[in-house]
């Protein structure tokens, strides 16, 4: 046997997840259209602890959300639309290091990772954020998460319809801030953000691209049944990829990468996990680190830059849409350019078993799918080998953030799996109807993405992806920064990114982008504890 191949991770070897103890937005994710983020500071510790004890039964756990999500997905596949009768309201909670310190003690919190304890504002320079204190993206200007307005707690409420979200949020605020001034309030609000999927283009972020297509598939079982996989497997067992991927292109990753206390990914072998690390403190088991970044998007600036590139003689013959697809790595529909290099392909975009099945280094043929899926087959053009970045440029966002089968300076594809995060972001703000002709009202309104990720190492996962790959010109491959997420401000405050992208004749040409498309405007590093920890240690 060669390492990394035919041992096969068996059902029994996959962790039995403590599904009633793990907050669900980490491993399962809330899929609802409406969300509310409430950042608050603890004013009175005993009252806050009492509140936490009262709210605990409302916290959504894996054992509730996983069956709901599976049923939702099944019905959607069956009927082709969101099942209208399936409604849910979920709530999850996470605490910052200052928040945990108030509820426990400074010495207890020192056991957590240094990056978490220091907080997002301290990591901000290494993420490429502007260091000029007057710049909008500098922590001093943030709506939440600056040294002056750190949140102790973030509550995420998620619902399928707006009315449910509003009523739940209203009740939550009353419980946290008090309905009158006669009682001592447990908390005060630091910042609040209403979020919702775009009403005009569900699943698309504000620049117009389908988001969240590529996610790692956490391994593990949610109950004792051998096939109760958190991430159902659809690749036929006759194909060796069946033990590596849940769905075509969706790699299986050991759950200890996302929730503390479970087997972790080995950077050299995808099938033989590292044993579960004992978390510090011990009550951190079943918890996750949560990164929240409020990212403001300047939609007209993005599309103006793209149109300027298209007007450049170097890129004659390339449409703005194609240049934008080079920047993202996918067409607006979500179809990957690795499988549809010259034009968008709606059918590919809508085929969940094909739209994420590609590599960058080697050609990929579609795997066989289990018969019970009744899948008609992936007949789309296959992805070619593209080490040199002539189909999908090295700087494309999806290639920078997830190099898939490419070698990187930190290892091969198995090492890349150790970097993966579970993204749970959702847009905020109203969309711009026509980015090239925005209305005054649209220009006056903020919009963007509430970026949320779950991981067990903020430093080796979230921060690594940004400061080791996105912000660096020559990692994982040379050609420039990730023009979407990468930031490098020069002394005059200009976010200058040089990128190599293919011209119409196939040659790679350098372009420069100076406009800032995405600006961090708040956030924080949080920890999402288990139900047991909140019951026994924090309340």
């Amino acid at each position, binding site marked *: *046997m*060669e*390492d*990394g*191949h*035919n041992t096969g991770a068996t059902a029994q070897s996959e962790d039995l997840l403590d599904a009633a103890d793990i907050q669900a937005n980490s491993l399962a994710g809330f899929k609802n259209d409406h969300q509310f983020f409430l950042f608050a500071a603890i004013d009175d510790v005993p009252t806050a602890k009492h509140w936490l004890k009262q709210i605990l039964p409302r916290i959504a756990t894996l054992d509730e959300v996983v069956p709901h999500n599976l049923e939702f997905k099944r019905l959607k596949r069956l009927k082709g639309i969101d099942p209208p009768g399936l409604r849910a309201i979920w709530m999850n909670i996470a605490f910052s290091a200052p928040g945990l310190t108030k509820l426990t003690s400074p010495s207890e919190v020192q056991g957590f990772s240094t990056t978490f304890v*220091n907080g997002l504002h*301290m*990591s901000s*320079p*290494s*993420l*490429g954020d502007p*260091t*000029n204190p007057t710049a909008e993206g500098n922590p001093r200007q943030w709506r939440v998460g600056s040294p002056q307005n750190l949140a102790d707690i973030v509550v995420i409420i998620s619902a399928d319809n707006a009315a449910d979200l509003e009523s739940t949020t209203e009740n939550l605020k009353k419980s946290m801030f008090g309905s009158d001034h006669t009682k001592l309030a447990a908390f005060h609000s630091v910042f609040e953000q209403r979020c919702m999927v775009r009403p005009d283009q569900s699943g698309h972020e504000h620049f117009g691209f389908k988001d969240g297509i590529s996610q790692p598939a956490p391994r593990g079982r949610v109950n004792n049944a051998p096939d109760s996989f958190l991430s159902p497997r659809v690749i036929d067992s006759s194909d*060796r990829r069946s033990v590596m991927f849940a769905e075509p292109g969706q790699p299986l990753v050991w759950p200890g990468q996302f929730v503390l206390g479970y087997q972790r990914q080995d*950077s*050299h*072998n995808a099938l033989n996990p590292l044993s579960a690390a004992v978390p510090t403190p011990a009550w951190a088991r079943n918890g996750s680190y949560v990164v929240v970044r409020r990212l403001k998007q300047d939609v007209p600036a993005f599309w103006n830059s793209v149109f300027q590139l298209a007007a450049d003689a170097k890129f004659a013959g390339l449409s703005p849409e194609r240049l934008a697809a080079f920047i993202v790595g996918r067409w607006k529909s979500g179809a990957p350019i690795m499988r549809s290099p010259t034009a968008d392909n709606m059918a590919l975009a809508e085929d969940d078993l094909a739209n994420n099945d590609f590599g960058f*280094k*080697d050609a990929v043929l579609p795997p066989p799918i289990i018969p019970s899926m009744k899948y008609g087959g992936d007949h789309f053009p296959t992805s070619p*080998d593209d*080490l*040199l970045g002539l189909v999908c440029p090295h700087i494309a966002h999806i290639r920078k953030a997830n190099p898939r*089968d490419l*070698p*990187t*300076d*930190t*290892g*091969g*594809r*198995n*090492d890349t799996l150790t970097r993966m995060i579970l993204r749970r972001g959702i847009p905020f703000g109203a969309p711009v109807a026509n980015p090239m002709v925005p209305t005054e009202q649209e220009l006056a309104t903020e919009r963007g993405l509430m970026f949320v990720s779950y991981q067990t190492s903020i430093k080796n996962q979230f921060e690594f992806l940004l*400061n*080791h790959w996105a*912000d*660096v*010109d*020559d*990692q*994982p*491959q*040379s050609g420039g920064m990730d023009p979407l997420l990468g*930031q*490098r401000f*020069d*002394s005059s405050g200009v976010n200058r990114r040089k990128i190599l992208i293919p011209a119409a004749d196939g*040659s790679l040409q350098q372009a420069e982008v100076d406009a800032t498309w995405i600006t961090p405007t708040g956030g924080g590093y949080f920890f999402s504890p288990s139900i047991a920890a909140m019951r026994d240690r924090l309340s």
Partner: protein
Amino acid sequence: MKLASFDPPANLTDFNPKLRAAWNTYISYTLDQNIQALSSAVLNPQFYNATKIDTPANPATDQITWIGFPRLISLKYPDDDRAAWQEADTPLASGERPQDEYLEWFVERVNNKVTRVTFTCEGPEYWEALAHGYPLDYDGPKDPAVKGDTATLLALYHQNISPAVQLNDLFSDGKYNRLNKWNTSRGAMHLNQRNNTLGAEINIAAQATILRRDQTGQSITDADELIKCAKFGQPGRASDPTIGDHVNTLARDGYLITLQDPVALYISDINTAGFVTPNNSDARQYFNVVRGSAGMVVRAIFEVPASEGFAVGDITIEGQPIEFGGQIAEHITMKLTGLAFGRGQIQNPSQQCVDQKFALKAKIKPMTRRHSG
């Protein structure tokens, strides 16, 4: 067209005409030896000598990059950055540095505060050639008229290390000593880690052109699996698996492959995001190239001018004051550039994994990398 000759690394101008010619002979011979060794394994070697085979205009170029901090040391201390920085900064008893990613550094301190860190990626062969005409391990044809240029050798040490360097300090038993005190305890003129050689770079690239298959007959396509199978270096390093995998991918695509002239390892870039200076200045300006040129940097110094009123040790990276050179090395990218042409022209059958290093089997001087322990 054919390359006229191989230039010195970074087109450095230290060599006199005879030494330049000798350097060309050395690189060309080293490539040929590796190609000859490949010929015993495959029908059509996919590694070539650009002075002997035409390279068409506009070949595909592949920049292979990796981080300069020793990844094996990082992996040894997954939760203790400080321990990793300390180990990487601490030489072995022999003076050999444990920095095995083709980037080595020397730290200078005043009152225990870091004031200057010098980075080098120059292979020792270049310096041996300056001393003797040809690298010491070179066993190919030699022009008897080629002599070392010890005056230039000494002048470079004076210029880059210290005016106190004596020529005798650089030699041991009449041979240039890679581990002389001015390249160990007193400075870093060039790479001294045993595996950080140009020969190793060429050898890895050559061996990586052999296609490999596992026991089930499946083609091996992953960086880690490839290096375990082909044994051209050590899994876990940043450089070896990356170089090997890039070259092997091009080989699978049927290309003819070589290394871009001037053949050398280079410092590609420094990423100073996260570097915070006391006066909020851009830390990138304190990283200055002293040998080589843009795109071909082989020596650089990180130092703050006295006029700024603070020192390197006052700069923080991700909140930690700079106490070790390794903290900066973690943000330096290294590179080498491969050239390839003729996509799909050669389709060699894949080979089984090897039990011994191919270079040893082929009876050429072993230049593959060894773990320095």
